[in-house]
């Protein structure tokens, strides 16, 4: 035994890599190789060249869908922030019991299947659902349809993604040293001034982490906008699926996927330059 331990100690630098090897191998095999194939298809299908990229970057439909995708992702991120920040603040400034109860509620919705939550929104927002009923009861003679609009798809996506935002902000808020707030107060910072100059900057990493996660995940959303959104607002993932399923346009679909990936990486790169990517993990 002693021999083994000393051997391990001697190879201290190798050990973490050994532990990492299965995962690295797994990722290489089941992520990088298929990704490489997708990249290959984008420049070889139906013939070798950059035709697909030219189409994606110049076609009005594709441009419109990409702009809509980024707009939607930004909108959802902002909404998640507006909902998540006050909630995280509340969790941090209430009793431990209440904070746990709120956390439990958030994680419970988080554990529920994606599709179930989407269908639940269809029931809630549908013409015969409680929301329309309530609107009619309080005096809307002819309540507007809510389902199949940008509003309903945004609402559902915010619901699905808000936990990422809340967890990130909450974990950062929890780590703020109360002494900092007290000393700020002793220097005469109160109310909005205290919030703007002390509290908000201290929670900025949480905001940035949450926003990047929500934004990036939202870029790839597929089912929710298709089932809940309006026909005119399409997301890139939906269009990629449609291109392949309907037209067997594997090359064009691949090119769109690669463009989406590159833009996502650019967002992460900007974030990494500004805040450091390691912050995403804790």
């Amino acid at each position, binding site marked *: 035994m002693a021999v083994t331990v000393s051997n391990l100690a001697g190879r201290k630098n190798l050990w973490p890599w050994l532990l990492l090897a299965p995962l690295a191998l797994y990722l290489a095999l089941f992520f990088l190789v298929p990704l490489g194939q997708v990249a290959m298809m984008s420049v070889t299908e139906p013939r070798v060249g950059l035709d697909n990229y030219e189409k994606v970057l110049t076609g*009005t439909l594709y441009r419109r869908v990409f702009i809509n995708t980024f707009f939607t992702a930004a909108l959802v991120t902002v909404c998640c922030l507006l909902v998540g920040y006050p909630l995280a603040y509340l969790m941090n400034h209430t009793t431990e019991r209440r904070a746990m109860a709120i956390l439990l509620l958030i994680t419970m919705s988080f554990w529920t299947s994606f599709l179930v939550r989407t269908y639940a929104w269809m029931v809630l927002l549908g013409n015969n659902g409680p929301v329309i009923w309530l609107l009619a009861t309080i005096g809307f003679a002819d309540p507007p349809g809510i389902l199949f609009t940008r509003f309903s798809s945004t609402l559902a996506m915010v619901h699905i993604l808000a936990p990422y935002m809340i967890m990130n902000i909450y974990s950062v808020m929890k780590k703020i040293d109360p002494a900092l707030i007290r000393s700020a107060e002793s220097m005469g910072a109160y109310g909005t001034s205290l919030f703007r100059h002390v509290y908000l900057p201290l929670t900025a990493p949480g905001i940035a982490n949450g926003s990047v996660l929500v934004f990036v995940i939202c870029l790839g959303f597929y089912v929710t906008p298709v089932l809940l959104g309006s026909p005119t607002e399409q997301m890139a993932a939906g269009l990629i699926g449609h291109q392949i399923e309907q037209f067997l346009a594997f090359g064009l679909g691949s090119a769109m996927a690669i463009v989406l990936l590159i833009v996502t990486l650019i967002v992460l790169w900007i974030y990494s330059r500004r805040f450091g990517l390691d912050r995403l993990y804790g």
Partner: protein
Amino acid sequence: MTAKQRSMLVRPSRRRFLQGTAAAAATTLATPHIARAQNTELYINSWGGPWLEAATANLFDPFTEETGIKINTVSPVSFAKLAQQVRTGVYEFDVTTLGGGDIVRANEAGLLEDIEPPYEGALFQNGAASHAFATKLAWRTDAGWDGTPQNWADFWDVERFPGSRSLQRYAARVLPIALLADGVPMDELYPLDIERAFAKLDEIKPHIRVWWTGGSQSTQLLRDGEVDMIGIWHGRYYEALDAGAPVAATWNQAEIDRAYWVVAKDTPNMEAAKQFVEFATSPKPLAGFVTQGNYGALNPAANEFIPDSALPRMPTSPQNYPLTFEQDMANWGGDPHEVSMRFDEWLAT
């Protein structure tokens, strides 16, 4: 054994090799998996819903009983997967059904195995004609209208029949409907006047609340009253009706599609797949399938096994068929692929 594992074992390039080794190995090393995968399991692409119920009771279970070949279903129905299977040699399903529009493309792309006609006149583009289904006009009876919609022109008439609408997101089915709404008679539809169809579609676009993409979605839209009028597959309409929803429909100007059983090119389960296609289009099983699923049998020999009580719900029955029209992909009027692309751009604007 999952489809993937099975597929890896029997990639077509190695199939012959494996058959040989499997036979040899079976005696010495006992490799029952390979032997079983080749002979007693079949993977069929399923449409789900009422289709699957009718197919399981009348085609899948009786086939297994007769031949001992186990049937597994794979969903959803995917044309892209059919193409990808042949490209990669990894098979998820051996048998699927295709509509008239897709089968031409699939056969031209070499995705379909050559098959023998199971009955006279069965073959079209390497598919065995199985059953007819229709896209018909259906509506909510609680919409509060004076009178009932009679045809697609009424679908477009938002003054007389106010309310939201839904159609399938599928150009090949929607364009002929738009022309009928514009007054083109059913027997003069083809070749389609594409420009005129799009101009007519412009009129109804603001009133289409959803362009449905899945069968179960269309049932839900009608059943839950999300839309007041819908162009819907007739089987899905009856599903909503049987669920007790206040709905009605007309056979007038219903659009008939034919569904064909096809065998995926080079599939490792070729023999069982062909055997199944023959079984599924033979008179008795087909009669049971169309009776339960409300489809129209395309093998005329099946008709003598169909009870009269089933006829009112069948698109091809003597009383309904004269009211309907059929898709004509051979004389369609344009490149369906290009028109679909244009339809997509039109949708997004």
